Protein backbone atom coordinates (compact mmCIF):
# COMPACT_ATOMS: atom_id res chain seq x y z
CA UNK A 1 0.00 0.00 0.00
CA UNK A 2 1.05 3.59 -0.33
CA UNK A 3 0.93 6.26 2.40
CA UNK A 4 1.58 9.96 2.11
CA UNK A 5 3.90 11.49 4.69
CA UNK A 6 4.34 15.23 5.10
CA UNK A 7 7.78 15.76 6.63
CA UNK A 8 8.97 18.59 8.86
CA UNK A 9 9.81 20.81 5.89
CA UNK A 10 6.25 20.46 4.64
CA UNK A 11 7.25 18.19 1.75
CA UNK A 12 4.75 15.44 0.95
CA UNK A 13 6.36 12.09 0.16
CA UNK A 14 5.02 8.71 -0.85
CA UNK A 15 5.91 5.81 1.44
CA UNK A 16 5.50 2.14 0.54
CA UNK A 17 4.26 -0.09 3.37
CA UNK A 18 2.90 -3.58 3.95
CA UNK A 19 0.00 -4.60 6.09
CA UNK A 20 1.32 -5.77 9.52
CA UNK A 21 4.22 -3.32 9.57
CA UNK A 22 4.70 -0.83 12.38
CA UNK A 23 4.82 2.75 11.13
CA UNK A 24 7.69 4.15 13.23
CA UNK A 25 10.59 2.14 11.68
CA UNK A 26 9.40 3.13 8.21
CA UNK A 27 9.57 6.80 9.12
CA UNK A 28 12.91 6.44 10.89
CA UNK A 29 14.55 4.52 8.05
CA UNK A 30 12.84 6.40 5.20
CA UNK A 31 12.47 9.97 6.48
CA UNK A 32 14.50 10.95 9.55
CA UNK A 33 16.75 9.03 11.95
CA UNK A 34 15.68 11.32 14.79
CA UNK A 35 12.28 9.64 14.78
CA UNK A 36 11.82 6.77 17.24
CA UNK A 37 14.79 7.34 19.55
CA UNK A 38 13.46 4.98 22.25
CA UNK A 39 12.78 2.16 19.85
CA UNK A 40 9.08 2.13 20.56
CA UNK A 41 8.77 1.77 24.36
CA UNK A 42 6.85 5.08 24.70
CA UNK A 43 9.59 6.93 26.50
CA UNK A 44 10.78 9.49 23.90
CA UNK A 45 7.79 10.92 22.05
CA UNK A 46 9.95 11.57 18.95
CA UNK A 47 7.64 9.51 16.73
CA UNK A 48 4.63 11.79 17.08
CA UNK A 49 2.54 12.05 13.93
CA UNK A 50 -0.78 13.71 13.11
CA UNK A 51 -3.20 11.72 11.00
CA UNK A 52 -5.29 13.63 8.54
CA UNK A 53 -8.87 14.11 9.58
CA UNK A 54 -11.03 11.04 9.22
CA UNK A 55 -8.25 8.47 9.59
CA UNK A 56 -8.17 8.01 13.38
CA UNK A 57 -11.03 5.55 13.29
CA UNK A 58 -9.08 3.28 10.93
CA UNK A 59 -6.39 2.38 13.50
CA UNK A 60 -6.60 0.74 16.94
CA UNK A 61 -7.17 3.23 19.75
CA UNK A 62 -4.22 4.21 21.95
CA UNK A 63 -3.20 2.28 25.09
CA UNK A 64 -3.13 4.02 28.48
CA UNK A 65 0.63 4.52 28.23
CA UNK A 66 0.28 6.12 24.81
CA UNK A 67 -2.60 8.31 25.97
CA UNK A 68 -0.48 9.56 28.90
CA UNK A 69 2.38 10.34 26.56
CA UNK A 70 0.13 12.18 24.08
CA UNK A 71 -1.19 14.25 26.95
CA UNK A 72 2.30 14.99 28.25
CA UNK A 73 3.28 16.11 24.74
CA UNK A 74 0.22 18.38 24.47
CA UNK A 75 -0.56 16.61 21.24
CA UNK A 76 -3.30 17.98 18.95
CA UNK A 77 -6.36 15.93 17.86
CA UNK A 78 -5.47 13.16 15.44
CA UNK A 79 -2.00 12.78 16.95
CA UNK A 80 -0.55 9.31 17.55
CA UNK A 81 2.77 7.70 18.36
CA UNK A 82 3.95 6.02 15.16
CA UNK A 83 5.65 3.29 17.20
CA UNK A 84 2.22 2.18 18.40
CA UNK A 85 0.56 2.05 14.97
CA UNK A 86 0.43 -1.27 13.19
CA UNK A 87 -0.65 -0.79 9.59
CA UNK A 88 -3.47 -2.74 8.04
CA UNK A 89 -5.17 -2.59 4.64
CA UNK A 90 -7.70 -0.24 6.24
CA UNK A 91 -5.10 2.56 6.16
CA UNK A 92 -4.16 2.30 2.49
CA UNK A 93 -4.00 5.87 1.22
CA UNK A 94 -3.48 7.32 4.72
CA UNK A 95 -2.00 10.81 4.84
CA UNK A 96 -0.12 11.98 7.92
CA UNK A 97 2.17 14.77 9.08
CA UNK A 98 5.27 14.36 11.20
CA UNK A 99 4.79 16.62 14.22
CA UNK A 100 7.24 19.51 14.60
CA UNK A 101 10.00 18.97 17.15
CA UNK A 102 8.78 19.89 20.62
Amino acid sequence: MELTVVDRDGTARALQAKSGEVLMPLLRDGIDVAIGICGGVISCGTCLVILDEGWSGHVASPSDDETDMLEALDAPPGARLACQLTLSDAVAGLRLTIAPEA
Partner: protein
Amino acid sequence: MTEAIGSRLRGYEDLPMPFGWFAVAMSDEIVPLEVKSLSYFGTEVVVWRGESGELHAVDPYCPHLGAHLGGGDVVGEDLRCQFHHWRFNGEGGVTDIPYAKMIPPKLKRSCLATWPIEESLGVVYVWYHPRKAAPKWALASAPIIAAEHWVKAQEHEWIIKTHVQEITENGQDYAHFRAVHGTQGPPASEFQLDGWSRRNTVEMQMVTPRGPMSGKIDALAVGPGQSFTRFTDVTDVYMMQETTPIDSGTTHLRWQFYHAPDMSDGKLRVTAARIRDLVKQVNQDIPIWERKRYNHAPMLVDGDGPVLAYRKQYARFYQFDDPEPAIAAA
Protein backbone atom coordinates in the same frame (compact mmCIF):
# COMPACT_ATOMS: atom_id res chain seq x y z
CA MET B 1 16.91 -35.09 45.91
CA THR B 2 19.47 -37.63 47.02
CA GLU B 3 22.90 -37.20 48.46
CA ALA B 4 25.61 -37.52 45.87
CA ILE B 5 27.79 -40.48 46.76
CA GLY B 6 31.47 -39.80 47.01
CA SER B 7 30.94 -36.19 45.98
CA ARG B 8 32.35 -33.16 47.69
CA LEU B 9 29.35 -31.05 46.74
CA ARG B 10 27.81 -29.65 49.88
CA GLY B 11 24.20 -29.65 48.76
CA TYR B 12 23.70 -25.89 48.69
CA GLU B 13 23.41 -25.91 44.90
CA ASP B 14 19.94 -27.44 45.38
CA LEU B 15 18.84 -24.89 47.95
CA PRO B 16 17.51 -21.59 46.67
CA MET B 17 17.52 -18.48 48.85
CA PRO B 18 14.34 -18.07 50.93
CA PHE B 19 12.13 -14.98 50.78
CA GLY B 20 11.67 -12.73 53.80
CA TRP B 21 12.85 -9.66 55.65
CA PHE B 22 16.64 -9.63 55.92
CA ALA B 23 19.13 -7.31 57.56
CA VAL B 24 21.41 -5.62 55.02
CA ALA B 25 23.14 -2.97 57.12
CA MET B 26 23.24 -1.29 60.50
CA SER B 27 21.40 2.06 60.50
CA ASP B 28 24.55 4.04 61.32
CA GLU B 29 26.32 2.59 58.28
CA ILE B 30 24.15 4.72 55.98
CA VAL B 31 24.20 8.40 56.92
CA PRO B 32 21.90 10.97 55.25
CA LEU B 33 22.89 11.81 51.66
CA GLU B 34 24.89 8.62 51.37
CA VAL B 35 24.54 5.86 48.74
CA LYS B 36 25.58 2.28 49.49
CA SER B 37 25.66 -0.74 47.23
CA LEU B 38 25.00 -3.84 49.34
CA SER B 39 25.81 -7.34 48.04
CA TYR B 40 23.15 -9.82 49.09
CA PHE B 41 20.81 -12.42 47.55
CA GLY B 42 23.26 -13.06 44.74
CA THR B 43 22.72 -9.50 43.52
CA GLU B 44 23.17 -5.96 44.78
CA VAL B 45 20.77 -3.57 46.44
CA VAL B 46 21.46 0.13 46.07
CA VAL B 47 20.35 1.95 49.21
CA TRP B 48 20.38 5.67 49.94
CA ARG B 49 19.25 7.92 52.74
CA GLY B 50 17.58 11.13 51.60
CA GLU B 51 17.95 14.45 53.37
CA SER B 52 14.77 13.64 55.34
CA GLY B 53 16.57 10.62 56.81
CA GLU B 54 14.33 8.17 55.00
CA LEU B 55 15.87 5.11 53.38
CA HIS B 56 15.19 3.98 49.81
CA ALA B 57 16.35 0.88 47.95
CA VAL B 58 16.47 0.04 44.23
CA ASP B 59 18.01 -2.43 41.80
CA PRO B 60 21.61 -1.67 40.84
CA TYR B 61 21.47 -0.73 37.17
CA CYS B 62 20.12 2.50 35.70
CA PRO B 63 17.26 1.84 33.23
CA HIS B 64 18.69 4.52 30.94
CA LEU B 65 22.05 3.26 29.68
CA GLY B 66 22.86 0.88 32.49
CA ALA B 67 25.27 2.73 34.79
CA HIS B 68 25.67 1.25 38.27
CA LEU B 69 23.58 3.40 40.57
CA GLY B 70 25.88 2.67 43.50
CA GLY B 71 28.17 5.30 41.95
CA GLY B 72 25.46 7.95 42.07
CA ASP B 73 24.85 10.67 44.63
CA VAL B 74 21.89 11.96 46.61
CA VAL B 75 20.17 15.22 45.67
CA GLY B 76 17.53 16.13 48.22
CA GLU B 77 15.48 12.98 48.59
CA ASP B 78 16.46 11.52 45.23
CA LEU B 79 19.24 9.37 43.85
CA ARG B 80 21.12 10.87 40.90
CA CYS B 81 22.81 8.59 38.38
CA GLN B 82 26.38 9.58 37.67
CA PHE B 83 26.24 8.84 33.94
CA HIS B 84 23.65 11.36 32.61
CA HIS B 85 22.28 12.77 35.86
CA TRP B 86 18.81 11.27 35.70
CA ARG B 87 17.23 11.44 39.13
CA PHE B 88 15.06 8.77 40.75
CA ASN B 89 12.76 8.81 43.75
CA GLY B 90 12.19 5.96 46.20
CA GLU B 91 9.37 4.60 44.03
CA GLY B 92 11.80 4.13 41.15
CA GLY B 93 10.22 7.01 39.22
CA VAL B 94 12.28 9.52 37.25
CA THR B 95 12.10 13.04 38.73
CA ASP B 96 14.56 14.81 36.45
CA ILE B 97 16.31 14.37 33.11
CA PRO B 98 18.45 17.49 32.77
CA TYR B 99 18.63 17.50 28.98
CA ALA B 100 15.16 16.26 27.95
CA LYS B 101 12.24 18.60 27.32
CA MET B 102 9.88 16.39 29.27
CA ILE B 103 9.89 13.33 31.51
CA PRO B 104 7.86 10.59 29.81
CA PRO B 105 4.85 9.76 32.02
CA LYS B 106 5.73 6.09 32.16
CA LEU B 107 9.22 6.83 33.50
CA LYS B 108 7.82 9.33 35.97
CA ARG B 109 5.64 6.61 37.49
CA SER B 110 8.37 4.00 37.84
CA CYS B 111 10.97 2.39 35.63
CA LEU B 112 13.40 1.07 38.22
CA ALA B 113 12.62 -1.88 40.49
CA THR B 114 12.50 -1.04 44.20
CA TRP B 115 12.87 -3.03 47.42
CA PRO B 116 10.70 -2.61 50.51
CA ILE B 117 13.10 -1.22 53.12
CA GLU B 118 12.62 -0.57 56.84
CA GLU B 119 14.72 -0.04 59.91
CA SER B 120 14.15 -1.12 63.46
CA LEU B 121 16.40 -0.90 66.54
CA GLY B 122 19.38 0.22 64.52
CA VAL B 123 19.13 -2.49 61.88
CA VAL B 124 18.21 -1.91 58.21
CA TYR B 125 16.11 -4.61 56.56
CA VAL B 126 14.89 -5.22 53.02
CA TRP B 127 12.22 -7.63 51.84
CA TYR B 128 13.71 -10.17 49.44
CA HIS B 129 11.56 -12.26 47.10
CA PRO B 130 13.01 -13.60 43.86
CA ARG B 131 9.78 -12.73 42.01
CA LYS B 132 9.49 -9.36 43.76
CA ALA B 133 6.25 -10.40 45.50
CA ALA B 134 5.11 -7.91 48.18
CA PRO B 135 5.92 -8.63 51.85
CA LYS B 136 3.86 -11.50 53.26
CA TRP B 137 4.33 -10.48 56.88
CA ALA B 138 5.30 -7.34 58.77
CA LEU B 139 8.88 -6.79 59.85
CA ALA B 140 9.27 -8.16 63.38
CA SER B 141 10.77 -6.16 66.21
CA ALA B 142 11.49 -6.39 69.94
CA PRO B 143 9.09 -3.96 71.59
CA ILE B 144 10.40 -4.77 75.08
CA ILE B 145 13.70 -3.06 74.31
CA ALA B 146 12.21 0.39 73.86
CA ALA B 147 9.34 -0.09 76.30
CA GLU B 148 11.55 -1.15 79.21
CA HIS B 149 14.65 0.83 78.19
CA TRP B 150 16.90 -2.19 77.75
CA VAL B 151 20.55 -1.31 77.26
CA LYS B 152 22.54 -2.24 74.17
CA ALA B 153 25.57 -4.19 75.31
CA GLN B 154 27.38 -5.50 72.22
CA GLU B 155 27.21 -6.12 68.49
CA HIS B 156 28.86 -8.98 66.59
CA GLU B 157 28.90 -10.16 62.99
CA TRP B 158 30.27 -12.99 60.92
CA ILE B 159 30.37 -13.92 57.25
CA ILE B 160 29.98 -17.68 57.11
CA LYS B 161 30.41 -20.08 54.20
CA THR B 162 27.12 -21.86 54.60
CA HIS B 163 23.50 -21.61 53.50
CA VAL B 164 21.27 -19.34 55.57
CA GLN B 165 18.96 -22.22 56.53
CA GLU B 166 21.78 -24.08 58.29
CA ILE B 167 22.39 -21.43 60.91
CA THR B 168 18.91 -21.43 62.37
CA GLU B 169 18.68 -25.22 61.99
CA ASN B 170 21.44 -25.38 64.59
CA GLY B 171 19.00 -24.38 67.31
CA GLN B 172 16.82 -27.42 66.56
CA ASP B 173 19.82 -29.75 66.64
CA TYR B 174 19.66 -30.58 70.33
CA ALA B 175 22.27 -33.33 70.29
CA HIS B 176 25.09 -31.01 69.24
CA PHE B 177 24.80 -28.87 72.38
CA ARG B 178 26.62 -31.43 74.51
CA ALA B 179 29.12 -32.50 71.86
CA VAL B 180 30.06 -29.08 70.57
CA HIS B 181 29.24 -26.68 73.38
CA GLY B 182 29.64 -28.87 76.44
CA THR B 183 26.25 -28.06 77.89
CA GLN B 184 24.79 -30.53 80.33
CA GLY B 185 22.72 -33.08 78.50
CA PRO B 186 19.91 -32.72 76.00
CA PRO B 187 17.60 -29.84 76.88
CA ALA B 188 13.93 -30.21 77.70
CA SER B 189 12.24 -28.08 75.11
CA GLU B 190 9.07 -26.93 73.57
CA PHE B 191 8.76 -26.20 69.89
CA GLN B 192 5.85 -24.39 68.27
CA LEU B 193 5.24 -23.41 64.70
CA ASP B 194 2.80 -20.65 63.97
CA GLY B 195 2.39 -19.26 60.47
CA TRP B 196 5.64 -17.58 59.52
CA SER B 197 7.14 -17.82 63.00
CA ARG B 198 8.71 -20.47 65.20
CA ARG B 199 9.11 -20.46 68.95
CA ASN B 200 11.57 -22.59 70.88
CA THR B 201 11.43 -22.58 74.63
CA VAL B 202 14.31 -24.47 76.17
CA GLU B 203 15.01 -25.16 79.82
CA MET B 204 18.64 -26.13 80.04
CA GLN B 205 21.79 -26.28 82.06
CA MET B 206 24.13 -23.48 81.17
CA VAL B 207 27.78 -23.07 81.92
CA THR B 208 28.36 -19.89 83.91
CA PRO B 209 31.48 -18.67 85.68
CA ARG B 210 29.89 -19.98 88.87
CA GLY B 211 29.33 -23.46 87.52
CA PRO B 212 26.31 -25.05 85.88
CA MET B 213 22.91 -23.54 86.51
CA SER B 214 19.51 -23.94 84.98
CA GLY B 215 18.15 -21.24 82.78
CA LYS B 216 15.48 -20.55 80.26
CA ILE B 217 15.91 -19.69 76.63
CA ASP B 218 12.93 -18.30 74.79
CA ALA B 219 13.59 -17.92 71.09
CA LEU B 220 11.21 -16.48 68.53
CA ALA B 221 12.12 -16.67 64.87
CA VAL B 222 10.03 -14.70 62.39
CA GLY B 223 10.68 -15.70 58.80
CA PRO B 224 14.11 -16.95 57.79
CA GLY B 225 15.96 -13.73 58.63
CA GLN B 226 15.06 -12.61 62.15
CA SER B 227 15.31 -14.24 65.59
CA PHE B 228 14.77 -12.78 69.04
CA THR B 229 16.09 -14.76 71.99
CA ARG B 230 15.80 -14.01 75.66
CA PHE B 231 18.14 -15.79 78.06
CA THR B 232 16.94 -15.67 81.61
CA ASP B 233 19.09 -16.97 84.43
CA VAL B 234 20.89 -14.89 87.06
CA THR B 235 20.91 -12.22 84.41
CA ASP B 236 18.49 -11.28 81.64
CA VAL B 237 19.93 -10.96 78.16
CA TYR B 238 18.13 -10.27 74.90
CA MET B 239 19.73 -11.24 71.62
CA MET B 240 18.58 -10.06 68.22
CA GLN B 241 19.91 -12.25 65.44
CA GLU B 242 19.73 -11.59 61.73
CA THR B 243 20.77 -14.09 59.09
CA THR B 244 21.02 -12.84 55.52
CA PRO B 245 22.04 -14.76 52.41
CA ILE B 246 24.87 -13.16 50.48
CA ASP B 247 24.47 -16.02 48.02
CA SER B 248 23.24 -19.56 48.47
CA GLY B 249 26.52 -20.70 50.03
CA THR B 250 27.38 -17.59 52.08
CA THR B 251 25.53 -16.00 54.98
CA HIS B 252 25.93 -12.79 56.94
CA LEU B 253 25.15 -13.35 60.63
CA ARG B 254 24.59 -10.36 62.91
CA TRP B 255 23.92 -10.25 66.65
CA GLN B 256 22.94 -7.35 68.88
CA PHE B 257 22.81 -7.93 72.62
CA TYR B 258 20.75 -5.99 75.11
CA HIS B 259 20.42 -6.41 78.86
CA ALA B 260 17.74 -5.37 81.29
CA PRO B 261 18.15 -1.86 82.75
CA ASP B 262 19.54 -1.05 86.20
CA MET B 263 21.71 -4.13 86.67
CA SER B 264 24.20 -4.41 89.51
CA ASP B 265 27.90 -4.61 88.67
CA GLY B 266 27.83 -8.28 89.54
CA LYS B 267 24.98 -8.94 87.13
CA LEU B 268 26.70 -6.91 84.45
CA ARG B 269 29.75 -9.15 84.82
CA VAL B 270 27.54 -12.23 84.49
CA THR B 271 25.91 -10.64 81.45
CA ALA B 272 29.29 -10.08 79.83
CA ALA B 273 30.23 -13.69 80.59
CA ARG B 274 26.94 -14.92 79.12
CA ILE B 275 27.56 -13.00 75.91
CA ARG B 276 31.15 -14.22 75.80
CA ASP B 277 29.85 -17.76 76.12
CA LEU B 278 27.34 -17.32 73.27
CA VAL B 279 30.05 -15.85 71.05
CA LYS B 280 32.30 -18.76 71.99
CA GLN B 281 29.53 -21.19 71.06
CA VAL B 282 28.98 -19.75 67.61
CA ASN B 283 32.73 -19.77 67.07
CA GLN B 284 32.60 -23.48 67.91
CA ASP B 285 29.78 -24.01 65.40
CA ILE B 286 31.26 -22.04 62.48
CA PRO B 287 34.09 -24.42 61.52
CA ILE B 288 31.55 -27.26 61.47
CA TRP B 289 29.06 -25.26 59.37
CA GLU B 290 31.75 -24.25 56.92
CA ARG B 291 32.70 -27.83 56.11
CA LYS B 292 29.44 -29.75 56.52
CA ARG B 293 27.11 -30.60 53.69
CA TYR B 294 23.35 -30.37 53.64
CA ASN B 295 21.86 -33.85 54.05
CA HIS B 296 18.43 -33.85 52.46
CA ALA B 297 17.67 -37.14 54.22
CA PRO B 298 19.57 -37.03 57.49
CA MET B 299 19.78 -40.20 59.69
CA LEU B 300 18.03 -38.84 62.74
CA VAL B 301 17.54 -40.86 65.92
CA ASP B 302 15.74 -40.64 69.23
CA GLY B 303 17.20 -37.68 71.11
CA ASP B 304 17.75 -35.52 68.05
CA GLY B 305 15.67 -32.34 67.98
CA PRO B 306 12.83 -31.27 65.68
CA VAL B 307 15.08 -30.79 62.66
CA LEU B 308 12.55 -32.13 60.19
CA ALA B 309 9.66 -30.10 61.60
CA TYR B 310 11.89 -27.06 61.26
CA ARG B 311 12.72 -27.91 57.66
CA LYS B 312 9.08 -28.51 56.84
CA GLN B 313 8.16 -25.03 58.01
CA TYR B 314 11.21 -23.53 56.35
CA ALA B 315 10.13 -25.04 53.02
CA ARG B 316 7.35 -22.41 52.94
CA PHE B 317 9.98 -19.75 52.43
CA TYR B 318 10.84 -21.38 49.11
CA GLN B 319 7.27 -21.40 47.79
CA PHE B 320 7.91 -18.55 45.42
CA ASP B 321 4.63 -18.94 43.56
CA ASP B 322 2.64 -19.20 46.78
CA PRO B 323 -0.94 -18.19 45.92
CA GLU B 324 -1.34 -16.87 49.46
CA PRO B 325 -2.44 -13.22 49.32
CA ALA B 326 0.44 -10.93 50.12
CA ILE B 327 -0.17 -8.48 52.95
CA ALA B 328 1.22 -5.00 53.15
CA ALA B 329 4.12 -4.37 55.47
CA ALA B 330 3.09 -2.80 58.77
